[in-house]
Structure formats: C-alpha cells, structure tokens
C-alpha cells in the first residue's frame, strides 16, 4: 500500500469517526460524494426526479446508520454505493410512493427551482441517445447483473471494489458481468434487427406508394 493511499485511508477513518457524532463531519462526506452518488443513481434509473429521491434516501440512511458503520477496509464511498444500489433495487421492485397534497403545502423547498433543475438533468440524460438505448436494455437485466455492469464500465470500479459494494466474491462479480454482458449484447442485437426490419418494411411501403 502506498503512503498516499494509506494516509487517505487514515484521513477517511478519522472523518468517519467524527461523523459518527458530528453532523458537520457527515456534511464533509456528503459534499465529497453527493455528485458521484447522484450520477450513479441517475444512470441506473434514467430519471432525475427518481434519482434525486433515491439520493436523498441514500444519504438519509447513511446519516442515520453511520454511528454503526464499521469500515473494516470498506471505503465510505463503497458503502454509499451499496446503499444507493439497494435503493435502486427497491425502486424497481415496488411502485412509487403516492403522496398526499397536504404534504406539499408544508414549509420547505420550492418547487419551480427544483423542477427546473431536474429538467436540465433530464435533458442531459436524453442528449446521449445511444447511451439511453443501451441503458434501457441494461435495466431489463437482473438487478445484480445491472449493478455489476454499471459499476464496472461506467463507474470504473475494480473487481475487488465491486465485490465489496455488492458483498460477494470477485468470481461472482465476474460471473454477473459475463452473463449480463452476453444477455445485453443479444438483446441489443435483437433490437437492431427489429429496427432494421421496420426500416426495410417502411422503405418497401414507400416504394409501393
């Protein structure tokens, strides 16, 4: 282990220790990782509104549970990824909350600004059509395979870290990746063929007219 990474770990451990009792220290962790977790959830769900919800749930749970968090070599970011991954899984499993109008009237944050910000985020997501098309297929994969693919190819995590986040062996991660990727490739090829057939038949219709 290099002295730099060792010192980083020591600093992180000290920060985690402080965050167990000091909200401001948790604020530092929040500031360090908010964007990463937002980006991750946004890619996973493809919708800014849902992603913001899941990020809020993730950090709320982290804040509540950090006093019981024991690092044991798990970086705090991996722990946050794990919570966020569970939130994504739960989101895909259960229907979205239905909320009452009364709650909206309680004091708090204003809607127009947040909506505006979300629209900007959604625009960003929609801009990369190719990515959106691939991610649509990724989301059809079993949850563990989705998670492994996103962590490996988008979040650029090493196998060891993915195993930590997913709480499984590296060999299991490899298996998720290999099976998931094969299925993804097949699904994309099928989609391509389907699209080609549609274009062909539209071309024939146009000619016959």
């Amino acid at each position: 282990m290099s002295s730099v990474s060792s010192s980083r770990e020591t600093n992180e451990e000290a920060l985690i220790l402080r965050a167990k009792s000091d909200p401001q220290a948790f604020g530092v962790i929040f500031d360090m990782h908010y964007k990463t977790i937002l980006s991750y959830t946004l890619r996973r769900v493809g919708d800014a509104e849902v992603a913001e919800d899941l990020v809020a749930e993730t950090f709320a749970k982290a804040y509540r549970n950090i006093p019981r968090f024991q690092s044991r070599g798990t970086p705090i970011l991996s722990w946050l990824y794990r919570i966020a991954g569970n939130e994504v899984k739960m989101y895909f499993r259960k229907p979205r909350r239905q909320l009452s109008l009364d709650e909206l009237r309680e004091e708090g944050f204003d809607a127009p600004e947040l909506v505006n910000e979300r629209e900007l985020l959604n625009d960003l997501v929609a801009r990369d059509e190719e990515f959106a098309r691939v991610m649509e297929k990724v989301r059809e994969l079993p949850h563990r395979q989705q998670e492994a693919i996103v962590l490996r190819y988008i979040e650029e995590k090493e196998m060891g870290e993915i195993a930590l986040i997913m709480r499984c062996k590296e060999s299991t991660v490899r298996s998720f990746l290999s099976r998931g990727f094969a299925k993804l490739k097949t699904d994309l090829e099928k989609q391509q063929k389907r699209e080609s057939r549609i274009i062909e038949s539209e071309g024939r219709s146009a000619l016959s007219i």
Partner: protein
Amino acid sequence: MHDKDIIKILQHARGETDAPLHREALRRAILSKKRGSFAPLQDFITQISMHKYYLSVGTVAAVAAIAAVVALSPISPSTVSAQEQVQRAFARATALTPEMRAEIEEKMKADMLKTLEEAKAAPDLKIMTKEEYEKDAQFTISRGPMGTQGITEARAIHLAHLDAAKKVGVGEGTITFSHSAGTHIEGHEAGESVMFAAKEMVPADLKGSSEVRKVVVGHNVMMGGVHEFSEPVKYLSYTDPEGRKTVLGLDQNDTPVFKFTTLNASDIKRFEFGAAGAPAAASVKIEMQKAE
C-alpha cells in the same frame, strides 16, 4: 454489435452530474436533524418528491400559500418581497448554462447558489434601493478584471498617486476614500478596479497613528464583458452566517451579478497585513480613524 462498441457507449457516459439546489437543500435537511428524528427529513424527501406528481396543483398551492403569508403573517411585506426576489434569482441562476454561471461566479468570486441560499436563510434579508445602497457603500463600483495576487499587488501602488484619491466622507475622525480613487492611479486605466492596501492608503496626517476600521471587499461582474449582464438594478442586503453584512446585486433579469461583504473586525487585520489567504478584492472601501 461488438463488445467493445457497447463498452465504449457505456464509458462515454462517465463523468459527474450535479444538482446544486437539490444538493444544498438535502444537505441542510439532513444536517439540521438529529439522527433519531427522521420524520422531518422524511417529510423533506416526501415533499421534494411531491413536486413531480403534483406540480400544477402545487404551483397553485404555492401562490395561495404566499398570498396567505402576506395576508396573515406578522412578517413584513418587504421581507416576503425580498424572499420572492431571491426565488426569482434562484430560478434565473439555475436556468443559466453551467458555463455561463461559472463565468459569472468567477468574476463575482462567489458561489451564486450558495449566496442565494445564505440570503434566503437570513432573518434580516431585505431589499435595498439603489440610493440606500450607494449611501451605505459610499463609493462607485468600478469595473474590469482584478488580479488575485492579494495584497502584494496593491503595494505596488505608489503612495504619491494616492494624493489623487478622492475623499468622499470626512467626519468624526473618519475618512472614507472613494473606490473611484483607483481611476486616478498610474498604471490603471480609468474605471479599472484597483486593490488598496490599508497601510499604503494612510495619508500623511494619519500615518503612523491610524487604524483601519472597516474594509469592504466585493466583487462584481458589471460591465466586465460578461455576455448580456448589465449593472445591478436591485439590491438585497442580509447578514451572512458569519455575521458579516452582505449586499447582493441583481441585474434587470434577476441574475446575481455581484456580492459585497463587509468584513468583520477580525478579518481586517489579516487583510491589512496581506497574510496568506487575504481576500482578493475587486473593490475595496477603507475607513480609517485617527487614533486618540
């Protein structure tokens, strides 16, 4: 489709995304709660979720709520109006492209959204008229880029040229120099912002026996070549979380274009001696008092 093509598409989406308003609101919501009391935080999460389901109804409800606040609340209408002004500035700030916002923030030397959050949370937030602002500030805001080299740069100003500095306020042992003095200093073009060092600003009759009483440091992007942004036409004043009086200037489109902060006494010494970390300033107002 090859594996490497799929990987390339996935990799292309790397990079971080930010939602500053959500980030700040969530941070505040989480850190303001005790770990055990999560109902309010849940309310917040619930509430921000609500907006997506009931936006149109929500907008009507928000308007009704504001009307109710104006009608029923002991809070003065000017405070409500200042809050509305902040909301409009928020909307404008978030509508800017990230590049544009970064460009303005670079010139303001302030985080636009953080400043607006500060203003929103300040209990003494109020709208200031231009006249009130000018009377209070007692100097004309200058223009142009300003170096960020700290006090060292200011020391390059020759004392001789300070004779041209315009005194705009004298009385009660206090002399306030106009910031526009900078326009008379050799080596600086008319209208260019100049940083003043308190020690160099001490005129002969006060030299050696004066102390700096007040330093106002601010930054502005007015007339600084930033797109369509013009000079501020609206001013909001508030006390920041560190207890410093702050003025936020908004242009005619409600875009925040400058922020001026009156430093606390504890900051002044640091500024005066130009220690590392001294604030870089685009405009500085200095008041000196003759020692008894």
